[in-house]
């Protein structure tokens, strides 16, 4: 029976057995059904997120009862909308101030990849700034899209284990000021599709 606090996970390490799986099932069940969101709505996707929380599409029946606008009391950071470079340190700080366990849903094309704003002001995807668990594409995604993304996140959480030491690790911004390697940032921010031809400066 799990007893004293372990060094990393808070629960003693244990080889997987019936008890650990039952404990994981209990913990994951309680986590998936009470994911309190931190809505970080910046732009148009926030409207769709609001309507997903409202009565017709009702995210509360999934356990997202309380929209916690404080990171201290939230489990999921939902970034809905484009993120300018000026706002990047703010979302990073909000993410850092959320206690574990925490997950992140990147809602919309702009939060996932920068969307149509492949410009000098917009972060090309919040995964340059915070680690993302689920990407919900769309411009904006319908509320049903956000609900599907939430259900995917719930499925991901059900596959987690309390005894996994590497899971709830804080990925901090390093002393150079980057969250990912510069090469990786450049690679995932590359223009693709139609915008490859649009680097001209008249």
């Amino acid at each position, binding site marked *: 029976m*799990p*007893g004293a*606090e372990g060094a990393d*996970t*808070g*629960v003693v390490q244990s080889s997987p057995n019936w008890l650990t799986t039952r*404990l994981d099932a209990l*913990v994951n069940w309680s986590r998936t059904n009470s994911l309190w969101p931190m809505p970080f709505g910046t732009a148009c996707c926030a409207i769709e997120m609001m309507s997903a929380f409202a009565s017709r599409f009702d995210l509360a029946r999934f356990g997202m009862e309380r929209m916690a606008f*404080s*990171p*201290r009391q939230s489990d999921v950071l939902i970034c809905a909308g484009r993120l300018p470079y000026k706002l990047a*340190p*703010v*979302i*990073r*700080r*909000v993410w*850092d*101030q*959320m*206690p*574990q*366990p925490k997950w992140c849903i990147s809602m919309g094309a702009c939060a996932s990849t920068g969307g149509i704003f492949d410009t000098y002001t917009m972060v090309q995807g919040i995964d340059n700034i915070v680690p993302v668990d689920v990407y919900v594409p769309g411009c904006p995604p319908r509320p049903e899209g956000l609900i599907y993304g939430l259900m995917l996140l719930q499925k991901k959480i059900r596959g987690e284990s*309390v005894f996994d030491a590497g*899971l*709830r*690790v*804080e990925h*901090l911004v390093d002393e150079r000021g980057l969250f990912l390697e510069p090469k990786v940032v450049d690679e995932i921010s590359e223009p693709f599709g139609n915008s490859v031809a649009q680097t001209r400066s008249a």
Partner: protein
Amino acid sequence: MRAYVPLLMLIGFVAFNAVMMVALSHLLQANRPTKVKAQPYESGMPNLGTAHERFDVKFYLVGVIFIVFDIEVVFMMPWAIAFRQLDLFGLGMLGALIEMGVFVLILAVGYVYVYKRGALEWT
């Protein structure tokens, strides 16, 4: 004594439930303190100033004065309920009224003092 057994069972269950919830959360927590996480939340901005602000004393004064006069009201309530059965100084209900009147008068002196000292001024 037997009538209290269900109550004690409820108290025991409630206590166990509360302790179990807190203990289980504590055991299963993922404790990852970082420097930024420990700082007060200011909507994602770096902190400006500390959280230990000075408060205006008017809040304390209003709270204390309220407590005193609220207790006065608490004393008046059982008096009001038993008023018709009271019989003091041989004068019946009038005696009870005088008794309470003296009580209120003593507290009214305190009220006049508070009023004159300006403790009820909000601005």
